[in-house]
């Protein structure tokens, strides 16, 4: 049972604190920092379902986030839907898209799959940039009046923040739930040896398609919320290849395949980046520092922070999942 896992409660406490502290202090600046941290955690956690659990490197994971943003913003601004149903609809639509896409490209393995995901990302970006209902490369804008419906801009932003924190908590709980489930066991088998998994009875085709689709859902919801908060979306920010790659960096940093590692990596990386970007001396070198850090992790600590913790304190494996 998931309720018996200490990590489950840790996630809830962590999310509650993240929601409560900036609200209590009415610290909007902290909120803006934390919402980016939450987004990073969402992206890294869901990416972990593919890379960490199933062993499929998805370079184009951001495509779900961006498409979710587009579907959500389109429904919320052009079709005048409320934010919550629009975001959920974005999640559903994008998951279905992923399911169909997955049937095709999940026949590929290893690096070929990774490359195909880059192709998908660029093809989708190009399509959206030519798609009239979504404003081509100019994108979609949120009318200020949309905030009025949610009780004014300030209120709307707090609401989006809580929703994003909610999605973050769900992402981590989803990761945990899958990890301790039979479904998760099947995914791990695929990660370790796909051929062996089939022979052991795992329906790998279905499992892969499902997890690909599942890993699309929450990022799409988060994308809808985040771009609504941003007030606009265009193809270059929705489908940022760099962000897709940074998701992988976050995962490696924290430790792929672990619930806490993905979250930790996402949070830390975003914090580091924010710090470097606003530090006058280091801002020119933020890429160098982030790259160097990644290189060190890949070369010397492939298990990431959590892997390092496991080696240091083997018993941690039981608690920190």
């Amino acid at each position, binding site marked *: 049972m998931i309720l018996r896992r200490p990590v489950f409660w840790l996630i809830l406490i962590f999310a509650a604190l993240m929601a409560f502290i900036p609200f209590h202090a009415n610290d909007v600046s902290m909120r803006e920092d934390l919402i980016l941290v939450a987004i990073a955690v969402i992206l890294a956690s869901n990416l972990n379902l593919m890379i960490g659990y199933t062993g499929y490197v998805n370079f184009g994971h951001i495509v779900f986030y961006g498409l979710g943003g587009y579907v959500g913003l389109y429904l919320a601004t052009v079709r005048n839907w409320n934010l919550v149903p629009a975001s959920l609809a974005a999640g559903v639509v994008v998951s279905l898209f992923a399911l169909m896409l997955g049937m095709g490209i999940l026949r590929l393995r290893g690096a070929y799959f990774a490359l195909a995901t880059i192709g998908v990302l660029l093809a989708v970006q190009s399509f959206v940039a030519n798609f009239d209902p979504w404003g081509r490369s100019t994108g979609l804008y949120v009318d200020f009046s949309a905030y009025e419906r949610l009780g004014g801009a300030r209120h709307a932003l707090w609401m989006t923040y809580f929703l994003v924190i909610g999605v973050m908590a769900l992402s981590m709980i989803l990761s945990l739930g899958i990890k301790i489930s039979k479904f998760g*066991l*099947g995914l791990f088998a695929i990660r*370790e040896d796909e051929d*062996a*998994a*089939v022979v052991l*009875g*795992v329906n790998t085709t279905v499992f892969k398609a499902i997890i690909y689709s599942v890993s699309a859902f929450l990022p799409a919801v988060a994308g809808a919320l985040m771009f609504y908060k941003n007030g606009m979306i265009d193809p270059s920010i929705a489908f940022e290849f760099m962000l897709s790659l940074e998701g992988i960096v976050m995962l490696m940093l924290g430790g792929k395949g672990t619930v806490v590692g993905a979250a930790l990596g996402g949070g830390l990386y975003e914090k580091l980046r924010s710090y470097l970007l606003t530090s006058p001396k280091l801002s020119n070198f933020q890429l160098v520092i982030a790259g160097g850090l990644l290189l060190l992790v890949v070369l010397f600590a492939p298990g990431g922070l959590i892997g390092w913790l496991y080696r240091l304190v083997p018993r941690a494996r039981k608690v920190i999942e």
Partner: protein
Amino acid sequence: MTPLLEVSGVSKRFGGLLAVSDVSFSLGEREILGLIGPNGAGKTTLFNVVNGVYKGDKGTVKFAGEDITKCSPNQVVHLGLARTHQIVKPLQDMTVLENVTVGACFGREYLALKPARKVALEVLERVGLAKSAEMSARSLTIAGKKRLEVARALAARPKLLLLDEVLAGLNPTEITHMIGIVRDIRDSGISVFMIEHVMQAIMSLSDRIVVLSFGQKLAEGRPEEVARDPQVIEAYLGDPDIAEKLKENN
């Protein structure tokens, strides 16, 4: 009574090479059927066609009365046909227990996680790996990995087990142990279809033996009949060692 496994007229071609050519045989309940033949005879390919890793070009495979010719390997497992690999495929970074739990979870009974773990522990006990349950599969010895292969397949609660050279690479003590395990499996009511190069073992274990050479079925019958078959002995001439052993068995 209908046989458990019925292979009729199966062929498999890779490019210009006919790996398996028009092979037919059947296997009954509680039977141990051996499959022997020189290297490259197409034994593993035949296994792969039987459990659906490859689709045969011709012929049919029936299992427990159902036509499984077009089934994928995972469907075949659900029907009760499990197998091991000649080159072991442990799920390296998972524990031994998890490896076997995978087998139980997605096997014939498609168990939930908790009962699957129970079955896995039982099976580990049976193959003598209980002590290593929490070790990672990577850290097992080759003998341990062979046993893990068997345990995973067993955990699927199969009606028929395909064993692909489970004795290869083991020392005499380990061989004896493994032979015990195979007997035990048969005694528990599971049929076994096994490929083996260790002649003494397969001769003593099998109820019947099928011999493949260049993809074709050369002979089929009780071990002593097969061993006497001049065609079989000739097929093994390229391998005088085994030919010698065959004769010894007579």
